[in-house]
């Protein structure tokens, strides 16, 4: 009803890594799994769902891998969560429905691009600690 499993954080992590690597060429899923410290077979299942939903595009072959099927600026965390973990608070009522609505609001405010950009900015501040 209100559950977010490990599927969602893993998928968001991998999508952020994909965004950080740029969209010039497909990124092998093994590379994303390594960077995000995600079990590769688990990530394959998650990405298959996201591909079917039109979030990702995959390319086979030696230079195969994944790219975004739609801009990372348009992919919200809520969309990823609901594709992988189901609709948040679908059968909830009363205070639980309110809680689900609040959670949906927070998750809808953040896109994959937002998270990646914030991480890139934070990475840039490393130099000030030197």
């Amino acid at each position, binding site marked *: 009803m209100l559950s977010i499993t490990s599927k969602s954080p893993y998928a968001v992590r991998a999508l952020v890594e994909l965004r950080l690597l740029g969209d010039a060429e497909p990124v092998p899923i093994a590379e994303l799994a390594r960077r995000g410290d995600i079990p590769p077979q688990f990530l394959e299942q998650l990405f298959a769902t996201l591909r079917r939903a039109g979030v990702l595009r995959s390319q086979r072959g030696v230079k195969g891998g994944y790219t975004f099927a739609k801009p990372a600026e348009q992919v919200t965390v809520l969309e990823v969560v609901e594709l992988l973990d189901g609709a948040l608070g679908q059968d909830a009522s009363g205070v639980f429905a309110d809680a689900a609505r609040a959670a949906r609001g927070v998750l809808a405010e953040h896109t994959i691009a937002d998270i990646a950009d914030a991480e890139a900015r934070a990475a*840039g501040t490393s130099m000030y600690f*030197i």
Partner: protein
Amino acid sequence: MGSVQNSIVACVGGTPVVALRRMLDDGSSVELFGKLEWFNPGGSIKDRIGVSMIEAAERDGLISPGHTTIVEATSGNTGIALAFVCAAKGYDLVLTLPQGMSRERERLLALYGSRFEITESLGGMNEAVAAARAMATSDDVFLPDQFSNPANPDAHRRTTGPELWEALDGRIDVLVAGVGTGGTITGVGEYLKDRNPKCHVVAVEPASSAVLSGCAPAPHRIQGIGAGFVPPILNRDVIDEVVPVKDDDAVEVAHRLSTVEGVLAGISAGAAMSAALHVAARPEFERARIAVIMPDSGERYTSLPWFGPGGR
């Protein structure tokens, strides 16, 4: 008065080299040594470049006390080094930082009389560097710019390298040093390779921002290394191997240094030692003498939740 120094600035360098036998596995034939750079007066290896960059600019006639304001974009150990050198020599120091960044070191820096210029946006490094450069457009402002100043690696070529060589009687098989600006590994690495071309030089970087290994920059916790870009002064030719170290491993090894050796190492020192232990375990380095540069003390990080006792 033979033992009296004229200024705190003259007290930089001459840091101890300590054998660290208890960090190694029982039966290891490796000899492991740490150069403890927090014995410098400002508490870190950066004291060497603080002096070197200011004195190089003085020699070049670019700056003079009472006239020039020194401007640098840092709150790290380089800020502290510049703060005491500028105080001792009579320069004003302004440190620029982006808004929203942790400002916990400001109090320490302010004690030396340093001032801060906080740039308004959270635009990361670009805006604070731009602010520093904007201030430097007038004649009486000087930017040391540690990432591109040749006086940075030169300090290590002239002092850190020779000190290490002398302390270890010219027998160093492996050098391990973290890469922040790249000054230490460039200067010490070049000095050691000149004398022993077979010396294996190991660069250490954060695993989560392994830019030298070809990965994208990302946030990490190993303060002092991993700038997020390849610094202009880094001589990559001197590096034989890059070892990425995870944040948790750096902290864990730093804590082990404290509890096992009584050496209160900082996070980047823990990272360098973690890489050194990784190298020491390889068969090809049996009986090797491994020198590890340990930039600062753990005392500087006790307020960080993930570094204090039991913290993660």
